């Protein structure tokens, strides 16, 4: 599968239900305004214009809007999902170690890891542990924010299935965007 990631950028994929591509892009802009505000980046671009993409040196090239059921649309969504699962898995592994080996006080005070084995020390860092909890909680800084239904984050398969089931008369579209991080 071709990968659609760029260093220093997040590529959120926004799913919307709309009558046609034009309406999908309009709905997506409303959603992205909110997403960009919530990710405290306040700036984003879609693939409608390459102006900012070229300025940011983003080499990825994608159509501005795709039917979610098309081959490329499905690929884009699945890739986002797989990447999210990986981030989630890595963070979960670290939180497992943290609650297994550390006391709540050690986590709160970000205390040095003391006499834990080198293997554990290599995996968890006192300064990052609370960030890892945040990722598993679904509110991580960037990487868990790859799939949206409107401006709402998709954090489970159930959310994703719901997003892909469009209502009568509407179709599910996926619109890729780029947010610098």
């Amino acid at each position, binding site marked *: 599968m071709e990968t659609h990631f760029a260093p220093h950028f997040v590529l959120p994929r926004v799913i919307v239900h709309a009558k046609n591509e034009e309406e999908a892009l309009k709905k997506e802009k409303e959603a992205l305004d909110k997403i960009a505000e919530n990710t405290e980046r306040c700036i984003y671009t879609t693939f409608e214009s390459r102006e900012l993409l070229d300025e940011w040196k983003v080499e990825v090239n994608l159509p501005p809007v795709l039917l979610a059921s098309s081959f490329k649309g499905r690929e884009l969504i699945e890739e986002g999902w797989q990447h999210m699962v990986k981030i989630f898995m890595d963070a979960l592994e670290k939180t497992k170690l943290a609650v297994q080996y550390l006391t709540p006080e050690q986590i709160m005070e970000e205390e040095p890891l003391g006499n834990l084995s080198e293997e554990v020390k290599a995996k968890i860092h006192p300064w990052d542990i*609370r960030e890892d909890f*945040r990722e598993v909680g*679904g509110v991580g800084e960037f990487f868990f924010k790859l799939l949206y239904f409107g401006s709402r984050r998709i*954090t489970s398969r159930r959310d994703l299935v719901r997003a892909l089931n469009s209502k009568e008369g509407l179709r599910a579209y996926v619109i890729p965007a780029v947010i610098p991080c």
Partner: protein
Amino acid sequence: MHMLVRIIVHAEDEKQAFGKAEKALNELTKGEKYFDGYATFDNEEIRDSYVDWSYLQPVMLASSPNGKHFIEMGWKYTVEGFMEAFEQVKLAVQYLSLEEIMERKYPEGLPEDIKKRINILSIQVYFDELGNQPGHPKYLYHDHEPILSNEDLEFVLKPEEGLKVYVIPADVHY
């Protein structure tokens, strides 16, 4: 749901302190990311609704008896919230798989007594609560940054030269 947060600021006087707290609260409620809205204690209705906190003023010196008690209670609730979330996360990583956490479902065959101890519908929220971002159950803030440790709290209570440390109570909705 509502909670009572403490915004701690360093300022020259009460007026400046209140302005700084308002700025912090605007930041915390921006885009409804951490909290949906807030009300400070210059609002009589809010003040009257917190009967157990009748001594609270819109702005207090952190070193005053009332300010001190209010901050101490805020830290106590923060620690209690952390401990509750920690226990839930401990159970989650012991009994649930990645998929079960994401989909908020119990594994098949999990004994009833364990099920009763795990709040499955909110399980991701507990991970979130152990994170370092603002929001429940972080009751104390230095401007808009959550106070996450005793070390943070000790640091914020030391005034910068020429400034005093104030605490501003605010009702927030999440």
